[in-house]
């Protein structure tokens, strides 16, 4: 198949108009030694029907989490995405448009980004949001560069409660530039100890970073750590789960200077981890340092309201080597999906959804902890995710329960390298419950876990 519209007659006439004998003449300036003469070694073309058949075959070889009773979380969540989202994001005027550099003909894209920026500000309690970023890990890396540039200091202190992948990305991306990350381990119970963070903070700390809820689901004391950071002249960065902000206090109200995170849960399929939706929001004071695109409101020559990309001089295409970041694209279509989902939920629906998730997670946690052998790893209050400690391998339990139709959770042991060497995470399982999980499913899951534990006991006996 082929999307080139030209017939052979078209091609012949166009070649004549250009003044060459054949298509080959168009490439005459390419030296022969770098010309590829053999066809590329990729599979031969197929018709559209055959093509779709191929893709269906591959998709059928997958058992997606959405087709099982899934308790997987750790940054990506299985929430219900309403039908209106796809109806809107599949409109080609949104999907196939370019970046709105010609604002007169892009008011739709620009206004939706403005509305998205507003929604993020409302959720996080911050003054300024950018037009979105790739993911939470790169957003955290950008936050680190921002803090380093703002304070001119050389280190950044993070709680180990920040998602291990986000911390890995931060370390990799800022290897050549920006503050050096320093991680402070979590105590028993999985919630950050503000005093332990304070002990690591010094006059060279550009920022202190907490995740809310943290990787193990624990609710952190944001206000206490904000104080620790500000007392040392450092910025306070919060990695916040945006859905939790339907129930939890906005980080902006608790002293955050920068809030970043992953907003996939709004409007976007899990899609094996991408494309998701990184977000970043800052205080007014940091407005001119925020990376990424920004949409602002203005008026046109006739006084009519309109929207434009603004503060573009922060960006790479103007600043070039003076840019403070190299980010170019944003995840515009994912941001639109999130905006539509948030608009569908609305002021009333988001708190209701958040409460629903919290209650289901609390129920599941209580029932699981009744199973002999299952201990709490996360001690205090949680939102929709929590960790338990099992006597045996968490990965084994996960594998054992798949045939029964359950994805039991994310074994924390796979991230062992990002935690204190002494923390034995092999038996730790991270479990999330969204509004999709019914009581019947959760009860059946608890029974399956209990059964597996009993069987394991017998096996060990």
């Amino acid at each position, binding site marked *: 198949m082929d999307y080139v519209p030209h017939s052979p007659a078209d091609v012949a006439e166009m070649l004549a108009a250009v003044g060459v004998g054949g298509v080959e003449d168009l490439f005459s300036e390419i030296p022969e030694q770098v010309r590829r003469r053999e066809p590329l070694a990729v599979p031969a073309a197929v018709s559209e029907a055959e093509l779709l058949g191929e893709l269906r075959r591959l998709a059928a070889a997958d058992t997606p989490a959405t087709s099982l009773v899934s308790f997987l979380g750790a940054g990506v969540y299985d929430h219900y995405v309403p039908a209106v989202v796809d109806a809107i994001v599949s409109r080609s005027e949104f999907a196939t448009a370019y970046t709105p550099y010609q604002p007169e003909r892009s008011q739709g894209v620009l206004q939706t980004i403005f509305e998205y920026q507003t929604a993020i500000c409302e959720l996080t309690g911050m003054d300024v949001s950018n037009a979105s970023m790739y*993911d939470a890990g790169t957003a955290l890396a950008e936050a680190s560069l921002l803090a380093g540039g703002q304070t001119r200091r050389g280190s950044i202190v993070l709680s180990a409660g920040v998602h291990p992948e986000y911390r890995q990305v931060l370390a990799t991306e800022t290897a050549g530039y920006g503050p050096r990350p320093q991680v402070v381990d979590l105590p028993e119970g999985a919630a950050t100890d503000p005093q332990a963070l304070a002990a690591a903070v010094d006059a060279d700390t550009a920022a202190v970073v907490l995740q809310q809820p943290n990787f193990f689901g624990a609710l952190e004391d944001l206000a206490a750590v904000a104080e620790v950071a500000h007392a040392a002249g450092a910025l306070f960065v919060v990695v916040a789960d945006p859905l939790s902000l339907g129930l939890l206090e906005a980080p902006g109200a608790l002293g955050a200077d920068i809030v970043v995170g992953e907003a996939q849960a709004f409007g976007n399929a899990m899609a094996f981890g991408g494309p998701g939706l990184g977000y970043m929001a800052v205080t007014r004071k940091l407005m001119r340092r925020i990376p990424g695109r920004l949409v602002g409101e203005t008026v046109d020559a006739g006084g009519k309201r309109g929207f434009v990309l603004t503060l573009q001089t922060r960006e790479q295409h103007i600043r070039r080597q003076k840019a403070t970041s190299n980010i170019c694209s944003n995840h515009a279509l994912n941001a639109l999906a999130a905006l539509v989902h948030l608009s569908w939920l609305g002021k009333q629906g988001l708190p209701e959804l958040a409460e629903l998730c919290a209650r289901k997670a609390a129920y599941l946690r209580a029932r699981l902890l009744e199973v002999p052998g299952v201990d709490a790893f996360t001690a205090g209050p949680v939102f929709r995710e929590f960790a338990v400690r099992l006597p045996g391998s968490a990965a084994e339990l996960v594998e054992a329960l798949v045939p029964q139709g359950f994805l039991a959770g994310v074994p924390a042991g796979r991230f062992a390298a990002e935690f204190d060497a002494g923390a034995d995470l092999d038996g730790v399982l991270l479990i999330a419950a969204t509004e999709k999980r019914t009581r019947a499913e959760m009860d059946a899951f608890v029974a399956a876990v209990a059964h597996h534990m009993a069987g394991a006991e017998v096996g060990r006996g």
Partner: protein
Amino acid sequence: MAEAERRTIYEKSCCGRRAFSLPALDVAEVPLEELVPAGLRRAAAARLPEVSEVELLRHFTELSTLNFGVETGSYPLGSCTMKYNPKVNEVACRLEGFAGLHPYQPEALAQGALELMYELEQWLAEIAGLARTTLQPAAGAHGELTGLLIMRAYHEAQGRTPKRILIPDTAHGTNPASVVIAGYEPVAVPSDARGGVDIEALKALLDVDIAGLMLTNPNTLGLFDENITEIARLVHEAGGLLYYDGANSNAVLGISRPGDMGFDIVHFNPHKTFSTPHGGGGPGAGPIVVRDILEPFLPVPLVEKAENGRFFFEYDRPRSIGKMRTFVGNFGVLVRAYTYIRGLGPDGLRRVSEMAVLNANYVLEGIRDLFDVPFERRCMHEFVVSASPLKQHGVRALDVAKRMLDYGLHPPTTYFPQIVDEALMFEPTETESRDDLDTMIAALRAIVGEAETQPGMLREAPITMPVQRLDEAEAARHPVLRQRYPEDEGDGA
């Protein structure tokens, strides 16, 4: 129709209207205080919209009509490759077997996705003419940073710490920015009279402190650098590596491979070359392919295939630079790229480039007498002309671009690359028909005529769009970046 003032969704919100429905609570209704301590509970609900589902749909549908997509009309933005985004790609990426995958679900349950990634990696390696691919980077600029960090790791492994990266003066802005973030210093290399890298200037800049050279070929002028093999040889002799910015790959698919030109690292932009939609600014992806000497430094994980045919993610890679993003890549975007390449096959891919180059040459031929053509050379898939002849009428490239909107076309790229005065960069792509191109040529001829007879009108163009030219200075001086509410006005927000 009377023009009502445009309202945001927040301004359309009212009084408890709602669109959502949620399942009923089926577990005990424990008091919230028992779940979340008071100090952490939200004091006031976020002021999200309050609209019905119909109002929501009408709002966004109306906004969509203010946009211009590839399916609206021609979109000749240079270096953006605004080609047709096939609908079959959209069906493919929405299959539940792809969209419903959790990144941490057991690999045994994701064999189809892993096979797709494995094959796509191989195809991109073949197209690039290099050894090994990572699909991890989220965008072209992200791929650049990844490539530069790999360069850094490679040099360090050799016991070297060169500090500088050479970039041509025609480079896209992400190149020098990525260089800085990677911890290097960007150094500009001038272009010669034929628009390619000035070889003598390059030789003078090559010393032990050069880590590498970033190039795109054809370059942002749409010209193929005939000296590329010599350039590669010189840089390699000085101990540097060559990075290929794949933004202009649409000119050379199946025609010339960057690996064969001498490049060591290549990034592709699926949202340009491989037809994935631009989405109003993203998401894209930035897969990179490297020469075998650089393979050990690729980010983790890599997709591997075991003896028994099972696919898996390999995380045990001690020399890897680490992780450039969460999870494994913009999988949803990559499914579309996979579908595109699989559908086209080798002949289809080569035809893409042949027709892209033909279309660009056809448009150039149709308008060359209207503008200054800075380089007398065969253009590839894009070309740059200068609108400076119109200055005598007080008309600039910006005005030509804006007037094109009134003719139902999207403007080309303007004022880039910076070495051409009043630059207009056109890239029609291969999916424009001859009629579309003739329409574009006719519009440009008409606009240049208007420059002579109605320059004042051009300076106010566009005049038929939903809005006229916008006050960008005011937007930058006093930024309003979110919905404002009267109750917020007190705190100087």
